[in-house]
């Protein structure tokens, strides 16, 4: 308990377990989601034309019949199109997780190089970077317009404003601090 290093591992482990559990849950429920997906796809006038007669049981049966199909098989063939669709989404998710893991490594490497002296600006600077949620906030506006959800639009607006506070305030205060560090450099040179 006395070793801080250890407790941090515990934390990360906890996060990993949560992620894992999430995946398991997602896994168990994928049938349901696929069902809704195909149903609504039928509603919209898309080129994909799922036979409406196909009952949910059939989809499931079809799935359990295909005993553990692997990545390769599914990617190579599209004779199980619903599966193919899920697989591509799954691959994007997996790639996202890979991005996350690798970025954490980058983060650890670059941040351990920041000297103690600059830890307060680092804190506020990384804080400002977490304002990157502004991207999500802006992108969601279009979705809101599309489905015409006024509350969502309102929430998105507030989110943009909050993220912007974070960004402007964070970078601004970081700049203020950092220019203090470099100002007397210049004075010295002068």
């Amino acid at each position, binding site marked *: 308990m006395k070793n801080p290093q250890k407790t941090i591992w515990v934390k990360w482990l906890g996060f990993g377990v949560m992620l894992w559990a999430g995946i398991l849950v997602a896994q168990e429920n*994928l049938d349901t989601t696929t069902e809704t997906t195909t149903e609504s796809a039928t509603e919209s006038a898309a080129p994909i034309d799922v036979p409406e007669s196909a009952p949910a049981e059939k989809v499931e049966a079809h799935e359990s019949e295909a005993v553990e199909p692997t990545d390769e098989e599914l990617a190579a063939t599209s004779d199980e199109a619903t599966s193919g669709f899920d697989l591509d989404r799954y691959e994007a998710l997996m790639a996202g997780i890979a991005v996350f893991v690798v970025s954490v490594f980058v983060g650890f490497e670059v941040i351990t190089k920041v000297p103690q002296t600059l830890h307060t600006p680092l804190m506020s600077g990384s804080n400002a970077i977490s304002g990157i949620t502004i991207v999500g906030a802006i992108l969601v506006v279009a979705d809101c*317009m599309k489905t015409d959800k006024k509350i*969502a639009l309102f929430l998105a607006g507030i989110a943009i404003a909050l*993220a912007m506070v974070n960004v402007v305030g964070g970078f601004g205060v970081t700049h203020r601090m950092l220019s203090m560090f470099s100002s007397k450099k210049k004075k010295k040179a002068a």
Partner: protein
Amino acid sequence: MVELNTVIFDILYLLAAVLFIMGIKKMSHPRTAVLGNYLGIFGMLLAAGVSILITLEHKSIENNLMLPIGIIIGAVFIGTMFGAMLFTRVKMTEMPQLVALFNGVGGLASVLVAAASLFAAEPDALHAEVLVAGGLSGLIGAVTFMGSGVAAGKLQELDFFKKQLPIPAIVRHFLNLAMLVACVWCVYAMIGDGNVLLYLLICVLGCVLGYTLTTPIGGADMPVVIALLNSYSGLAASATGFVVDQPVLIISGSLVGASGIILTSLMCKAMNRSLLSVLFGGGMAATYEEDDGVYATVKRTTAEDVALMVDFADRVVFVPGYGMAVAQAQNAVSDLAKMIEDRGATVEYAIHPVAGRMPGHMNVLLAEADVSYEQLRTLEDINPDFDEVDIAIVLGANDVVNPEARKEGTPISGMPILNVDEARQVVVIKRSLSAGYAGIANPLFAAENTSMLFGDGKAAIQDISTALKDL
């Protein structure tokens, strides 16, 4: 069909993420750090600009352009105003609160983005992974929001946040766990029936969790909490990245997450405490038996005597601590230092990694007062030299110079300290003999080579300056 624009936009997003990485890389030296910050700003402008372009090109908007544009511009304007106001007005001593506040704002933004995107999405787009990521984003974001709020309140010493919950610790832990389980169940249920209103429940639970988790932690432990919440706000942004499927959010979020975790671990290490004991340990001073007689041999001194001592010294080291921040004495110190240097002595500053209430707190304050980067010396760097120091002036530092840390069984045992007691003469400037953050007595104050100068830090330093001028 994937449009060429989409490809270009995605590459620009990736470029923004790369700019963030390079920005933090440039933070590894004060000389390049300003540039690093600019890279970060540029990356953010790029990312936000691309997002706006994507939105403008959106089919559903072409019919009704005014509303979304108005909202975006309005929100950006309001946000910028508030942000600019905060960062230009804040005093450097209020930095910890400000960072906590920004943290909380960031967490809330994550909550709202996930909410908006879940509510706005058509039911068939609510895949399981989106819901899981959304749930994570909401939970972590809400905890960050509320936790940061409490932390900021405690640091600002608002009375409201000093109250303790009238619930025994074990029950509290159990309730927290129950809330966490409830959140997991909510996500599960959302996946089952696609009812996104459960998301609201998650947010509420997250807020309550954020409150119950942070309230019992002492105000002085807030810096650790803030760094941890900083990490959380990054993770929330990462989770949001999974919701809106943008690698740039995932990358930037995990950068922030890593930064927070590293700072947390660093603070814990420098205090020789474990993160768990900070978060769940409660008051630490309770078990420690104090010796009443420690302060029997304390000697007082006056500003004039200190000035005389300084006049004869060849090497003076300032040891600033939290008290310097409270007294806002950094400029006075820097002025005094210049006077001493003009008289031919060398002046250095010994900076303990956790002096003050933030990592690097003292460095920022002294940099504000135009102290040169080269004069700031780290613990490892200056500790071997203390026996060659003529006068160590301890200004509002307490725990970081407490020799009790070398003994077993005290709350700060094992914490590396500045070996101020090895200096030829020690002057300690503080208002009273009261304890510091760790709440324990400091035998240094009663040591043979120590004399105390009681008073507010800034006033005391100015008095010394005046006395020195008159010599």
